[in-house]
């Protein structure tokens, strides 16, 4: 629970970054087009650049800073890091939170369902492939499977 005073016209994005120093939330357009500023409000993905800070009073907001439990990173953060799903890393917080919400909704999403859930987030580096693979691996681990990435994911096809 955080109590803070801020200018009433500020967006949630500005409130987080400028007033609360939570700079992990990124922006790529500030017009609701790129998904980089995605955060979870009461567990649902929201574009923080399109929401007023005032609108989240009394609601639970999850940002990338809150995705880890202390030093323990979320399984999605681990697989994104290990599989190269974060290249420049600028879109990663938004993707991670959108993926987190997906896996809470559906622990075994198909590739098509992952694409659908992440379609509002743009990444210019990865071509999304490693992101899909990281979500699938994290999903498997969160289901309690001791999954390792397939050989072609890390070395390419033979």
């Amino acid at each position: 629970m955080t109590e803070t005073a801020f200018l009433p016209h500020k967006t949630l994005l500005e409130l987080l970054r400028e007033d609360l120093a939570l700079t992990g939330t990124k922006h790529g357009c500030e017009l609701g087009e790129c998904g980089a500023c995605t955060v979870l409000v009461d567990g649902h993905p929201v574009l923080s650049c399109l929401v007023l800070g005032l609108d989240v009073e009394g609601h639970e907001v999850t940002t990338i800073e809150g995705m880890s439990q202390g030093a323990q990173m979320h399984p999605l953060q681990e697989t994104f890091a290990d599989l190269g799903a974060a290249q420049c890393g600028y879109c990663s917080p938004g993707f991670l939170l959108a993926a987190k919400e997906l896996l809470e909704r559906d622990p075994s999403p198909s590739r098509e369902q992952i694409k659908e859930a992440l379609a509002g987030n743009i990444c210019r580096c990865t071509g999304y492939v490693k992101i899909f693979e990281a979500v699938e691996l994290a999903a498997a681990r969160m289901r309690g499977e001791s999954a390792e990435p397939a050989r072609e994911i890390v070395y390419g096809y033979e």
Partner: protein
Amino acid sequence: MNDANGKKGGELKVVGKPFRKVDARSKCNGQTLFADDIVLPRMLYAKLLRSHVPHALIKRIDVSPALNMPGVVAVLTGKDLPIPYGILPVSQDEHALCVNKVRFIGDPVAAVAALDEDTAFDAMNAISVEYERLETIASIEEAVAKTEPRIHEYGDGGNIHKKVHLEFGDVQSGFEQADLIREDVFFYEGNTHLPLEQHAAVARFDADDKLTLWSSTQTPHYVHRALAKVLEMPASHIRVIATPNGGGFGGKSDPFHHEIAIAALARITGRPVKITLTREEVFYCHRGRHPVLMKIRTGVKKDGAITAMDFQSFLDGGAYGSYGVASTFYTGALQTVSYDVPQYRFRGLRAFTNKPPCGPKRGHGTPQPRFAVEVQLDKIAEQLRLDPAEMRKQHLVRANSITANYMRVGTVGLGACIDRVVEASGWRDKFRKLPYGRGIGLACGAYLSGAGLPIYWNNMPHSGVQLRLDRQGGVCVMCGSIDIGQGSDSVLAYIVAEVLGIDPFDIRVITADTDLTPVDLGSYSSRVTLMTGNAALQAAERARELLTIAVAEKLSAPIENITFADRRAFDVEHPDAGLSFAEAVQLAEAKFGTIGTVGSYTPPPSPAKFKGGGVGPSPAYSYSAAIAEVQVDPETGIVVVERVWLAHDVGRSINPVLVLGQVEGSVYMGLGEALMEEMSYRPRRNLVHKIPSMLEYKSPTTIEMCDVKTFLIEEPDSAGPFGAKEVGQGPLLPIPPVIANAIYDAVGVRIDEVPATPEKVLAAIRDKAKGKEGRYGPKVVPRVDWPEPLRVPTPAQGGDGRAIPREAVHSRE
């Protein structure tokens, strides 16, 4: 036994392994600080007022309404920063703020610093500018036809920025030997990088006369030089720190207005100043892919062997020089490095137009000609009734050879690349055999592993690495390179860890800080892995040498027996009798003093000695082959790319996961260019960007992205560290032509223009149904008076890389 890189036993423990990037976890938990995340005490916020007219003289600027607003601290206009700059020494044509003329919508004319961003924004809008409109130049054709008004007072006449004409060998005789000569015209529309991170920078000027600039730039060294020039400050008083780039792709490679303007604002206000561009402004900064109109004439024998190629390119450069002279040469440089082209002629023209300046985007000047060459080869193969894969394979450039235009080629894995994708895709069962609406195509590409020459002439190294080892076993690598997401920080750590037998995560990497790190020219031209990698290798080997001497003495073992692995130094004959890595450093420090070593890398001299030969040479070329399978809806013209098989000759993967990521990202970016991405302007007088937003500038989402099957071909090239060549840009090159070729296989129409939007595909399908050609694309190129060619005899003709002196050419005629 030592391999080429001095590694004992030859077994690699780090190189070639899928290690996590050294900064990966910070990027996944929000800790990585990008430029806009930096906040300093008393910081001001800046905004740039940009021109809303495309071409005009500035008659008057009134800044007083802004200056009088509460909260406004300073306002600058062009007269405050009168010294021009530009990335290339030959085109110093930009000003931080326009001095007396604006050249495109988005050209900055004033800068404001205020206590907060909202006030800066209001103040910016309070400035009034009186313009006297000039006629505009909207296109290549118009620039060629209209010499007045001139956008710039320099160049090759009128609104022509640059004209070049090079002839290697005797093209005419080459055409005489041909069984088939094809002439085709192609157009490749301009598009932009669209990095997720908007450009941002923070400047601080302290009272002790030192300027620090943090900026999301791919080229801190060139920004450093531009700041020193424009601010008239000694470079030694300026520190540029490149922050991790939230995507670059070439779009953050020029020194930018906003960087210089906030540095000046910090100097006059004595307070830190930040600027973050809006997404719309990022579209105006542009420096993206040049729109290029091309005419290609190729002569071939019946078996597809090329006898001669004559290539013309016309580039729409936009309003400033940027990298444009290099871009122009690049549209003619790499046609020769994949298939043997014995006689070759290139004519290139870059036009100035009143649009945002074009520059380098992933593949810099080479995806456009590659599109033309690969689509034309597909047409040639069909005319000769040859399999396009087999035809290409029969005529590959020989490894370790010099091309007609003096590109020195090392390893060539292209044949292996073609084999791999042909086999994996089931090409032989599918090509020209799939049902109507479904198609398969093939195309190839080649790219530099770093430009052989620096941007400004000098004979110093292109990359430097400094290594410091401390007595507790800590290793710090310092290098001017900047990580733009490709993993260059990690590559430094992997290579040093490999040589010193330690874990890459033990290493601290400090990069892209002009005060702390030796110069690296920047993250462009796919140069970083090869060049910084070689520099890091040298620095690490020098450090290992010092440690080896000290350890050998301590263990009373022969020097050649000492090896480093698993954070230990030991005698290979008595592996148990060894020391920890930290103890080895302590012994060396006791013997030699503080342990610090340096490494540097300079590319080998190029055999191309003619004027213009500075663009194209590289220590090594990477190769790619791609096959795409597509579905085309003949009712709508919508193309869905289902899968791409791509094999890339990377020499050696320093880290295969990162290599795959570059391939997949390149396929993605090529897919966007091939199908949808385009810079689009309102025609004629206004020339305003129609779609400067991420919503309307269409780029592929997760839904449009195709499946990618990647194959890595690893034949180490002696030019690269551990044999590595580039991967960041090359795999993009085959994508636009492979999709065009697959569309033809699917519905029998040629889309000789990028992007292949549904409208174009549908128009071609309808034309074909009416019995017409079934082609969408340009038919003619402008008539131009080309200068006399610079004639360069080819190596086969006994040439030495020099041009025949012009006088000799004239006296012979």
